[in-house]
């Protein structure tokens, strides 16, 4: 009678089986492996790690395969997996000044101590389809030859520190010392007003597209704060953890992160002279677009702190933080596919009743 929604168990089983079949595609084409995804689709892998809030390239690649390349679905798979993991504690803050830099650029100075390091980027590529990629190629020059043999400095100074020496930029804020544990939005419900570190945590796992659009809106006059990419650096940093029973930190591994320090205008206020201010972005993997957008939005969200008038969505903490999570957003938007016929029935009944009432009133008036 009404099988479309009340399909029941068999229909669901069949849908899952069909999905598996579609995922495999044409069986005459070799099956893709998570290794291939991890090695050759690394930007996808990095996005899933950063928004999935779990640093694990292998699981990320597996999730992308399972989700048939739908990255938000892959992020969802990672989140649902990470939520079951036990929590041992917090690592020490990452020291990104000791990063093994793969790429590091500044837009504010022509040359900088430590040098501009382009690394692997498509920034200056002509976006012409490369038809030769359609063919399988043998590996050509090795990366070492391309890179040359220049040894990079152990510790590359921060561009913003140079400005800071002159007092032209506000110091990086220290909200909490190491004795207070950082907030954790996966263990405590989001509460407003949020601290900056909680906001940054939210933005770090926020949807890239959402942040991109919000960051873009600040450039187009909706809370304009004119950003300069003071420094973007990408590379491996050590993660340190201090187990309670040991009492001192030990290195437990390395992760690749992208960091963006944005330099923004500030007109000055009654209590502070004009100076540059900071916006900050940090996320797992090579996710430049993400961390740049994040830094713009972070800066916009500091409106209250800097005494700026709040006029635009990007400055609105509740608006931004409540809608940034794509796993939540996609779930709730897509839940409209679920049956709603009980509520719809109630609405039908009301509309019929109201139409009948207005008809009666109309007739009475005539």
């Amino acid at each position, binding site marked *: 009678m009404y099988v479309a929604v009340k399909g029941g168990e068999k229909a669901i089983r069949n849908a899952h089986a069909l999905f598996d079949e579609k995922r495999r595609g044409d069986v005459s084409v070799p099956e893709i492996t998570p290794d291939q995804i991890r090695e050759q689709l690394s930007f996808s892998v990095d996005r899933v790690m950063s928004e999935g809030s779990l640093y694990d390239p292998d699981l990320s690649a597996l999730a992308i395969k399972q989700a048939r390349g739908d990255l938000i679905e892959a992020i969802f798979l990672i989140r649902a997996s990470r939520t079951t993991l036990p929590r041992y504690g917090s690592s020490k803050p990452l020291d990104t000044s000791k990063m093994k830099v793969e790429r590091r650029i500044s837009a504010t100075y022509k040359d900088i101590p430590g040098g501009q390091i382009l690394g692997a980027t498509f920034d200056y590529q002509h976006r012409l389809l490369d038809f030769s990629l359609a063919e399988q190629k043998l590996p050509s020059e090795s990366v070492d030859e391309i890179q040359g043999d220049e040894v990079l400095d152990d510790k590359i100074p921060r561009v913003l520190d140079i400005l800071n020496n002159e007092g032209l930029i506000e110091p990086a804020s220290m909200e909490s010392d190491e004795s207070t544990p950082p907030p954790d939005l996966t263990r405590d419900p989001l509460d407003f007003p949020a601290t900056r570190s909680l906001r940054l945590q939210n933005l770090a796992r926020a949807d890239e597209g959402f942040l991109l659009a919000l960051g873009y809106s600040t450039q187009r006059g909706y809370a304009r704060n004119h950003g300069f990419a003071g420094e973007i650096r990408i590379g491996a940093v050590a993660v340190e953890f201090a187990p309670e029973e040991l009492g001192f930190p030990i290195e437990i591994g390395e992760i690749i992160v992208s960091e963006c320090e944005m330099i923004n205008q500030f007109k000055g206020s009654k209590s502070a002279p004009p100076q540059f201010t900071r916006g900050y972005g940090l996320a797992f993997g090579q996710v430049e677009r993400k961390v740049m957008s994040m830094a713009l939005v972070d800066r916009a969200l500091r409106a209250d702190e800097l005494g700026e008038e709040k006029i635009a969505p990007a400055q609105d903490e509740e608006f931004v933080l409540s809608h940034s999570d794509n796993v939540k957003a996609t779930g709730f938007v897509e839940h409209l596919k679920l049956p709603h016929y009980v509520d719809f029935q109630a*609405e039908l009944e009301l509309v019929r009743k109201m139409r009948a009432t207005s008809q009666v009133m109309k007739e009475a008036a005539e």
Partner: protein
Amino acid sequence: MNVSSTGYNFAYLNEQTKRMIRRALLKAVAIPGYQVPFASREMPMPYGWGTGGVQVTASILKPDDVLKVIDQGADDTTNAVSIRDFFKKTAGIATTEVTKDATIIQTRHRIPERELEANQILVFQVPIPEPLRFLEPRETETRKMHALEEYGLMHVKLYEDISRNGQIATTYAYPVLVEDRYVMDPSPVPKFDNPKMHEMAALQLFGAGREMRIYALPPFTRVKSLDFEDHPFEVQKWDEPCAICGTIGSYLDEVILDNSGNRMFCCSDTDHCRSELENAAEAAQ
């Protein structure tokens, strides 16, 4: 600790998480109608598809519980099937479609027609727990309004409905006042179900996963649907009985039968419909 064959803890969540949710539940029961923030976890089903209800159920489930899951009143809707399977798999508990046999009933959008009993718990899936949300989008504001018992905005909205349409144009998620204190969203059940909440013998728990809120109605809590003296609250009525079981007075779904728009009405509560049909058959024998 009870590990099921899936490799996950009993009912998926680890014990620390369950303890955190149970604390929120206890607080919710202590302050009927008050929304308790809780650290909702990501679940393996999407937000908006019952993650709040699933977390509440997972936290209160015991191995000897018998679980019933309904969506739109029916046990065989896709999402109800999926959630029931989830608990069968991760908790290995018994499930049922028979309302009176269930110890826990997780629901979306309906309250069963059959009166629930003291040994039963009804778990609601809640999309937007804040009844004032569509009047005031900011959480900072709405929390203040609840704290100050400042519900004028809601009454103005209902009044405007009446002046504009001659009646209150809210048919589901119809706001209720709990124990003369908190205005509460009853979840998107049709207002037809609101009176069942009043002084219900069963414990009613509400979980909103995406919005990270839990609230509760302990047994025999007074629940009043908001209205005015000259415009008393009333529920939907149908002129015809259920086309399948012939009962009068249950909530009916409208089913389109063909392209020319012919339709029939039948019980939304599938267990109710089946048991009415069985009763009628017995009486006939």
